């Protein structure tokens, strides 16, 4: 399919696969709405299908029927390789120039001189903790990887969670990178067999501590409320919602640093609503979306002006809190491949998938 050269009439709708919380129309909280104005202005009705993992997103896009997807770095390259998404013509997106320079040609969407989408939002995977169990903010991810006695005198065993997605192996690798430099890990997404085995061992130990892996942001929220969970890797989103409900919860980026995500709005190769899709991409950059979503999700806008120009609720301090300045510290999600840059031969993603299922299953 040819790249669009001009934007025509809207088709009346646009179908988007998105992370939960990414596309709000004021239903969860009336103050957060960046859809209604778009629909009114363009006549394009926004239909959202939420996905909880990158794998789910890839699967939905492979199946088809969607126009756009808010893909993280571990999904975007797979979809480009699989020819599920099409390059976008940035000249049709007037606000492109306002995009953060650090993101304009980021490797997870800029391939072969083509832009496969517009940057959406980025942020860290934070360590969320219960302030009653941790009167002091924990400084290391060790609280979710190793058994320790917490401030309330009880073990952390059974009271921590971990992400139910193979990409969590990278979190383990990130931890080892700091604590076992002898392994020589340079990127948590590029692991040779030895490094990979070490990460899996760490995760097998973690299995003893974790009573349930979290898969769905809302279920994690529930577990922190009702199941006595005290620590877990999480997204700022859950932290915000829990705090709004008055739960004793806070978050931190520990000394080892964090993995994180940088998401891109990408367009399906067979998009049936290309005009509305382009309009939406423009909307994501130009409207209150970047600002309000960064408050709502606790993440960073891909348009730096959104922190300061008052188009939404975000402020400069807010952006700083969310880690706007920590871009370099975050190891953004990407898909592990066997021919990796750092060491030639790495364990590819499909093994991450089956091995992680094994780890959760107790293998």
């Amino acid at each position, binding site marked *: 399919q040819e790249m669009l050269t001009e934007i025509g009439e809207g088709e009346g709708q646009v179908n988007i696969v998105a992370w939960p919380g990414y596309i709000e129309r004021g239903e969860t909280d009336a103050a957060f709405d960046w859809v209604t104005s778009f629909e009114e202005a363009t006549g394009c009705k926004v239909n959202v299908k939420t996905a909880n993992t990158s794998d789910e997103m890839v699967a939905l896009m492979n199946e088809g029927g969607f126009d756009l997807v808010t893909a993280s770095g571990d999904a975007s390259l*797979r979809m480009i*390789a699989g020819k599920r998404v099409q390059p976008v013509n940035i000249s049709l997106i007037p606000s492109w120039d306002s995009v953060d320079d650090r993101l304009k040609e980021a490797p997870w969407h800029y391939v072969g001189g083509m832009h496969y989408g517009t940057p959406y939002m980025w942020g860290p995977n934070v360590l969320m903790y219960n302030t009653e169990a941790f009167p002091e903010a924990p400084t290391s991810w060790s609280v979710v990887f190793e058994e320790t006695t917490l401030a309330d005198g009880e073990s952390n065993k*059974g009271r921590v969670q971990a992400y139910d997605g193979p990409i969590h192996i990278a979190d383990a690798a990130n931890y080892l990178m700091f604590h076992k430099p002898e392994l020589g890990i340079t990127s948590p997404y590029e692991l040779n067999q030895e490094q990979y085995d070490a990460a899996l061992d760490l995760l097998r130990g973690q299995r003893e501590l974790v*009573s*349930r892996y979290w898969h769905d942001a809302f279920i994690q929220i529930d577990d922190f409320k*009702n199941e*006595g969970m005290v620590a877990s890797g999480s997204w700022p989103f859950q932290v915000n919602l829990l705090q709004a409900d008055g739960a004793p919860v806070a978050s931190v980026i520990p000394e080892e640093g964090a993995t994180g995500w940088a998401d891109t709005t990408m367009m399906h190769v067979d998009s049936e609503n290309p005009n509305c899709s382009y309009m939406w991409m423009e909307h994501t950059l130009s409207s209150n979306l970047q600002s309000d979503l960064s408050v709502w999700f606790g993440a960073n806008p891909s348009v730096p002006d959104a922190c300061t120009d008052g188009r939404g609720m975000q402020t400069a301090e807010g952006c700083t809190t969310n880690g706007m300045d920590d871009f370099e510290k975050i190891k953004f999600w990407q898909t592990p491949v066997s021919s990796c840059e750092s060491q030639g031969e790495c364990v590819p993603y499909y093994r991450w998938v*089956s091995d992680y299922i094994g780890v959760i*299953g107790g293998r």
Partner: protein
Amino acid sequence: MSEHAIDPGRRGILPALSDLLWRNPRLVILLLLGPPALWLGIVYLGALFALLAQSFFSIDEFSGLIQYEFTLKTYRELFTPANFDIILRTVVMAASVTIAAAIVAFPIAYYAARYARGKWKALFYLGVMLPLWSSYLVKVYSWKLILAKEGILNWLFETLHLSWLLNAYLAIPVVGGNSLSVSATGTFLVFLYVWLPFMVLPIQAALERVPASMLEASGDLGATPGQTFRHVLLPLALPGVIAGSIFTFSLTLGDYIIPQIVGTSRRFIGQAVYAYQGTAGNIPLAAAFAVVPIVIMAIYLWAAKRMGAFDAL
């Protein structure tokens, strides 16, 4: 009295058609069976086979796209230890749920079939049907409230000062866990709860077909009530138990919602199928996983048929 003993035949399309059909009984069967056979035999079975066929394809690991070439690679993957664990775990769970359901359901069904009369009978019937038709999801969630660490059961144990008992149980490996809602026991309880009515009804139907004289004959021949139960009632109710177990077994094999809401995060076949086809887009592996319950159920149905359990369905 009419002059003719035989009518020349009425005019009109319907009577003519009726005559035609009467003369061709095979045509009638064909017409009756055509639509359902077309749907179930062609579309449904066809879809099943199409799914199964996919299990002989493989997936490109990086792009997630299916490679349409015959291979047994996917089956090799199915029997990797991690996946085999899933199969084993699910089958063990399905079997435990089935056995427990039969044990819990039997007294209910037996009482309803043998002793309940009139109003009580209706009450028992409603008592089984109401849970059966109440929203599955809401029932599952209500168990989350019951089993959670901050939930009702815990509250109850605390109020009764029996928390030590619960904690002792939860400390047992495999069945225990941090709280009931994240333990295998929790998953088991919810499965048991949700499928129980499916076991009660067929057992009740089977028991209702056991003539009273059969039990009297046993007593007459010297069997105590216990012996009568063991040697007559149980074997005669068995087709009902098997019919019920078709449901409990099959439903447990395929469910992905319950173990996700209440459980240990260790996957079940249903979750694996769901994840591989939906979230991972690995249709071939999903199809291979799907073959497992199909094969198990095929064996099960074959055995059930031999035991005459279909009549009790």
